[in-house]
Structures are given as C-alpha cells and as structure tokens.
C-alpha cells in the first residue's frame, strides 16, 4: 500500500519494469522475443554449420537442372528432359487437380448424404449413419490403399480388351475404357485448330479460350436480359419470357464456334500393351481421389447435418404454416440459414482434403510431395531446400484457400447489428 499522505512521484525506476503492470508487459515481451530469437538463431546456426560441413550450402539452383524422370499423369507438357522446377510445377498442378476433384465430389456427396441422413426414411438414414461411422474412424491412408487396391483388382488389364472375343469391353460407344492402369476417356480435338498461346510456363489452347469467351459473353447477356425482364415486370406486372432467348444466347455461339473449328472426340484405342490417345486418369489418381472423397464426405455429411439441425424448428414450422412444401422449405428457408454454419466447416474440410492429398506419395501419384519432396529430393540430395520449398508452397495454397473461402463466407454471413 502506498502512503496516502505523500502521493508517489511519477519517476521511472528500473524496478517498475517488473512490478508496474504498465511496463511489465514490455519486459515480458522483450524477454520472450529474446528467447525465441536465440532459439531460432541456435537452430539456424546449427543448420548452417552442419550443411557447410557436408559441403552443400543452401542454394536453389538445382531447380534448373534436368529432372530425368517421367511423370505419367500430367496436365501440362513435360518430359524427362525438363527441369526440376518444371517437375515441381507439374506436381503442383496434380495436387491442385486431385484437391479440386476431391472437394467437388465430396461436396456433392456430402450435401446429398447430409440430407439423406436427416430423412425420415429409417433405413436410408441409418445406412448413411453407418457409412459415416465406418469411414470416419479409420485412417484416410488406409482408405486410399483400399480404394487403390480395389480399383486395380476389379478393373480388367489392358490386354483383356484385345483379340476376337475380348474379355472386357469399352463403355459408351467404345469411347471409355476402364483398365487397371487407369481410365481412358475421349479428348476434344479440332480438325481446323486455331493453335495455342504460349504464356511462358504452359500452353493455353485458343479453342478453349474462344469457347469460354463465348460462354461468358452469353451468360453476361442472359443476366442483362433477366434484369431487363425484371424491370419490365416491375413496371407493367408482366414478365417477358426469357428462358429460350437466354439458352440460345449462351449455347448457340459456342456450338457454332465448335462446328466451325471442326470439333470431334478423339477416342482412346488399344495400341501395343496399353491404350493410346484420349485423356488418361491413372489408377493412382483414381485411388487417391476415391479414398479422399469417401473419407472427407463423412465430415461434410456431419457438417451439413449439424448445420440443418441447428436451424430453429420454428423456422420450418413457420414455413409449413405459410404453406410451403417440404422441398421448398428446405431450399428457401432451412438451407440458406444452415449454410452459415456449414460453410466454415466446409472450408476447413477443403483445407484438410488438400493437405491430405499429400498422401499421394504412398501410392505413387505424382503430386507435389512425390515430385519435389520425393524423386527430386532423392536425386539432388537437397533436403533442406526441397522440404522448405514444399512447405512454403503448401502454406501458400492453404492460405489462399482460406482467404478465398473467408471472403465468400463474409459475403453470405448474416449481417448482425
């Protein structure tokens, strides 16, 4: 207790750094900072000493060397003569490909499953519950192995398609082949091609750009048309029909363009020991995709279920009192409110799926970890650089997904006053 009669002089003393609550925070922070800095410095200096002793200072020029290994699943041009940087880029695209495919499939299955889980059909809701409990409580790596083995065990070998009376046949008018090396699908080709633009690291097909531009133009036109229809409806009470015009505006130009460029489907065909031509999804991609999807779906089902159940029962009762049918109650009243609870959980599941896609290395799918953290690392012996780069890339992907999704979340969330 301070002396009441003589107020303490406001003069800084060294002991105030410890005993005065105003300054103690600064002392603690400086102390913590010093501690962390010296720890980091210790680690870094150890690393520098150890690497120098091994004669490999930290340099990233190995990325420019020839990679010398093949990647069977790729979205952009790559050969074994390309550089390690190029291999890393191919791996990054493969990671993004499987993450995108997995997120899309898991979202669709998860929303359907979540609604079925709450269905009043006892059998269906119990089946979904059973699926969730089985798949969620077993490691995802095990599911990836199981999916991979199931696919390669059940799908026929390419040679089963050969001969007079082949054991296996292709589906959809001889255009899709399921083999244990992967799925072969037809690819879009053009008899009067426009060529490609080289944007530095990969080629962009001009045909795709043309079709995309026409589609986007059509959609913009359709939105304008809808706005005009709404304006006329506000003024006169009659809404001019827009459906046919919109559909024509969106579809017709691209169809005409496709015909003009001579669009046709290039079907895969058996050549030698394997299929040639068409788009190839390798067995490892399918196994990884299925495993990640089946595992992540269970979490999305639970997110959807909890989101829907969190909406107050009064909401659905009010909707019923207004005379809305159950389907419209779900679409117009419950889901929009449930989305606010579902979306944050969905974001974290997307992030988890993207990070879990790194398990590709266990089944030989050439993603970022298998290229940069796998073969490139083993060939060049640059562990420090390769793994730090790997972590930096994943960090960037994760942060971008969460930034994008948070932006979306902020747009749809309830504005509270």
């Amino acid at each position, binding site marked *: 207790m301070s002396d009441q009669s003589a107020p303490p002089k406001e003069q800084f003393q060294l002991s105030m750094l*410890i005993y005065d609550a105003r300054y103690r*925070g600064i002392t*603690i*922070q*400086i102390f*913590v*900072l010093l501690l*962390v800095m010296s720890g980091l410095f210790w*680690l870094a200096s*150890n*690393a520098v*000493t*150890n*690497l120098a*002793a091994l004669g490999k200072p930290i340099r990233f020029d190995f990325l420019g060397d020839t990679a010398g290994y093949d990647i069977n699943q790729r979205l952009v041009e790559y050969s074994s003569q390309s550089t390690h940087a190029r291999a890393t880029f191919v791996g990054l695209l493969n990671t993004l490909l499987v993450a995108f495919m997995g997120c899309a499939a898991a979202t669709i299955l998860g929303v359907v499953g979540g609604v079925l889980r709450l*269905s*009043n*059909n*006892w*059998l*269906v809701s119990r*089946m979904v519950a059973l699926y969730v*409990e*089985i798949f*969620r*409580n*077993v*490691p*995802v*790596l*095990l599911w990836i*192995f*199981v999916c991979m*083995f199931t696919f390669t*065990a059940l799908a026929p070998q390419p040679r089963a398609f050969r001969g007079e009376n082949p054991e296996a046949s292709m589906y959809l008018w001889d255009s899709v082949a399921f083999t244990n090396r992967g799925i072969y699908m037809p690819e879009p080709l053009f008899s009067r091609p426009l060529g490609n633009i080289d944007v530095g690291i990969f080629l962009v097909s001009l045909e795709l750009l043309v079709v995309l531009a026409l589609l986007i133009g059509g959609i913009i036109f359709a939105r304008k048309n809808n706005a005009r229809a709404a304006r006329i409806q506000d003024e006169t009470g009659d809404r001019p029909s827009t459906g046919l015009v919109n559909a024509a505006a969106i579809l017709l130009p691209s169809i005409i363009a496709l015909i003009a460029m001579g669009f046709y489907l290039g079907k895969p065909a058996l050549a030698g020991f394997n299929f040639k031509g068409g788009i190839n999804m390798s067995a490892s991609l399918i196994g990884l995709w299925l495993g990640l999807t089946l595992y992540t779906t269970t979490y999305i089902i639970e997110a959807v279920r909890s989101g829907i159940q969190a909406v107050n029962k009064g909401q659905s009762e009010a909707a019923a009192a207004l005379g809305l049918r159950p389907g419209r109650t779900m679409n117009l009243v419950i889901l929009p409110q449930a989305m606010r609870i579902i979306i944050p959980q969905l974001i974290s599941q997307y992030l988890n799926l993207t*990070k*879990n896609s*790194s*398990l590709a*290395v*266990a089944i030989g799918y050439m993603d970022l*970890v298998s290229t940069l*953290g796998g073969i490139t*690392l083993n060939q060049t012996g640059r*562990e*420090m650089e390769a*793994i730090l780069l*790997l*972590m930096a890339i*994943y*960090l960037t992907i*994760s*942060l971008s997904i969460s930034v994008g999704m948070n932006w979306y979340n902020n747009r749809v969330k309830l504005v509270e006053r």
Partner: protein
Amino acid sequence: MSDIGYVRTEMLGQLPPPGNTVGIVGWMRSNLFSSVSNTILTLIAAAFVVNLLFSMIPWIFLGVWNADSLSHCREIFDAKYGDGREYACWAVVRDRWDQIIFGYSFGNLNEGLYWRPILGVLLIFVSITPILFPNTSRWLYVATFATLFLYPWLIWGGALAGPVTAALIFIAGYFAFRALAKAMLPSFALGATIVLLAVAFLYLQAPISSVIAAILPIELQPVASREISGFVLSITIGVVAIVVSLPIAILLALGRQSDLLIVNKLSTGFIEIIRGVPLITLIFVATVLLKYFLPSSFDLDPVLAVMILVTLFTAAYIAEVIRGGLAALSKGQKEAADSLGLNYWQAQRLIILPQALKISIPGIVSNFISVFKDTTLVSIVALNDPLGISDSIRSNSDWNGIVWELYGFIALVFWIFCFGMSRYSLYLERKLRTDHR
C-alpha cells in the same frame, strides 16, 4: 316419466387404433413407406444392403483361420467348398498377430516382453479413469502421474532409477514453485522453477539416479526406438503427442488471445504455419531435416524425432480448439476476475481456463482421434506402424497377395479405438451441456 328412450350413462371405451398404424406394420408405414419417393428409396437401399451382405458375409464367415500360407488357404477352400471362389484367409491375422500388435521389438524377437506394452496400456487406462469419470477417487491421479514416467520406462526399458529420479525432480520442482510463488510474481516463479528444473536435470540427475539405482536395482531390457513397431508404435506416438501437446496447446492458445503484441504474433505465426502444411511434410522434417538443426553430436533417432513433430502438429490444432473455447466465454468473466483483484495467472487458472477447457473438450477429443489416425503416416517414412508391417507381411512369399484381410483387421482395430473415443466425446458433450433444449 321421460320420453327419452336411451341415454348412455358411461363413456364408451376407446377403439384400438387402426391396425396399420401400430406395431411393426405401422412403424414400417411411417418410417419406410410413407410416400412413393420414400418407398423407392427404401427399396433401392434394401437392395443395396442385401447385395452387399450376400457378397460380404460368406467371404468373411466362411474364411479360414488355420493355415500356414495363402496357398495353403486356397487348398483348404478347394477341399472344403470346391466352387472356385475366394474366401477370407484370416489365418494371416492369426499367424502374424504378434507382429501386427507388438511389432518387432516386443514381438517375434523377444516373446517374453509382451507384458511390458500390455501393462503400459493397462496403466494408461487406469490413469485416464479419473479424467474420464470425475466421480472416481482423486487418488487415482497418483496413478496418472506415475504413468507419465512408467509408460516410457515400460516401452523403452532401462533402469527404473531413471523414471523415478525424473518424477522426484518434478515433485521437488512443484514444491519449489509453491514456495517461490509466495515470494514473487507467479510468472517469475514459473521461470525460476523452469531454470531450477533444467539445472537439476543437468547436474543432479546422474548422482540421484545412481543412489536410487543402488536402492532399487530393477532394470528392464532396453528397446531401441527404431525397433518399436506395430500398434505399440501407433499407441506410443499417439499417447506421447496427446499428453505433451496439451500444455503446449494451452500456452499457445493463451498466447494467441494475449494482449501482448509480440507474444500474440509469435503464437499466431506458429499455429498458422503448422496448420498450413500437411503432416507428411512435418514428418519429412523430422526424419530428414531435424538432424541438421541440432548439433551434430546429437544422435536423434527417427521415432523420437517423429514424436516431437507430431506433438507440435497436434498442439497447433488443439490450440485453435482451446482458443475457440476462450473466445466463447463472455468478457464479463475476465472483468469479474480483474475486479476481484486476481492477477493474470490466477484469473486464467481459477476462472477462465476451467470454463474454456470444458467447452473445448469435445473438440480436443476429436483432435486426439485425428492424431491417432494420423500416426499411420509414419509408414511413409519407413517406420513400422501397422500399415508398414502389412507391407512387410505381404513381401513374405507365404502371404504374398493378401490385401483385404490385413487392411480389414488393421481398420477394425483403429475403428474400435476411434469409435470408442468419439462415443465418449458425445457422452461428455451431453453431460456438459447446461442449456435446455
């Protein structure tokens, strides 16, 4: 007299409900066939279930438990059923049971050592009883404290003096902290205690443990970390990560909620970096990079390195769960603590953390489930967890080509653990729920 012919004087009994709304028929009508679309759904689902059961059940239950190899299994199938179909060869689970559960260290090599992991797991169950069920005797916390030191001893072996010395030093440290906290601010007392503990471990451990070794000359056969494998490896990594990560996670969560800018930014940065990268990259860091970051005199074995990184990984995730619990508390709680004159640590210990941790328990348990499942990732860096062992079993010519039986068994064991934990978390959630719904 009255002209009324008939007046009923007593109530009629209720008619029974229509036959098609009660009993099993009524239940089926309301739950399975309430509308056309529901009926179609039910039929599709039933067809699916029947189909699945018809293909799975014979495979599972007609399988063989006694055989030496896969080809032996097939001979038995041919002799028994003769229909050319494949059935489960469960004999592999029977044959390699020890290897899958106990791994190499306790398994094939030293069959006499099985009691060590078994006793260790039993100790863990005893030690979590007071945490799981709060009405049990508080004296069981003594078992919890003892397990912290006894479990590593049972797994790694060595002299009993080591864990006993460590426990004694920690107990002494606790009393030193109590004494110091009366003399100075708690945060400084904590810092001083940590320094004291470090000094004690550096200089006093060897003499004390030699004294104890003279009194208690009990020694277990040591087991090298790289030999720990099978489910013993999964459980050990999981338990170490769970136990060690909790205090780190609480500190990180408090740091992230703190008003001190530098502490806040450091905690946030650590949490976000760890959560932004996949666990497999951290496991690579453990097995490949960690040896560069430590002085070359350190001989860090891969299992220990993996444990450290998995612990940090878990801590970052649990810190976020606890932060959610801290954020869910109303601001009034902290203000009330301040107005009572409690300092920061007193307020956290007595007011804030008990409530925040209670809210976060379900999230923490679900993170424990994740970390236990994630221990399978160590098979990628060639450690012998059950998945790694399943690979090596398949590479043996006796069992080459066996897939489903091994994965099915491993999945079943994981499922039992994880399902049990998730049911417990649901039970807790219901018990701790104080609102009325």
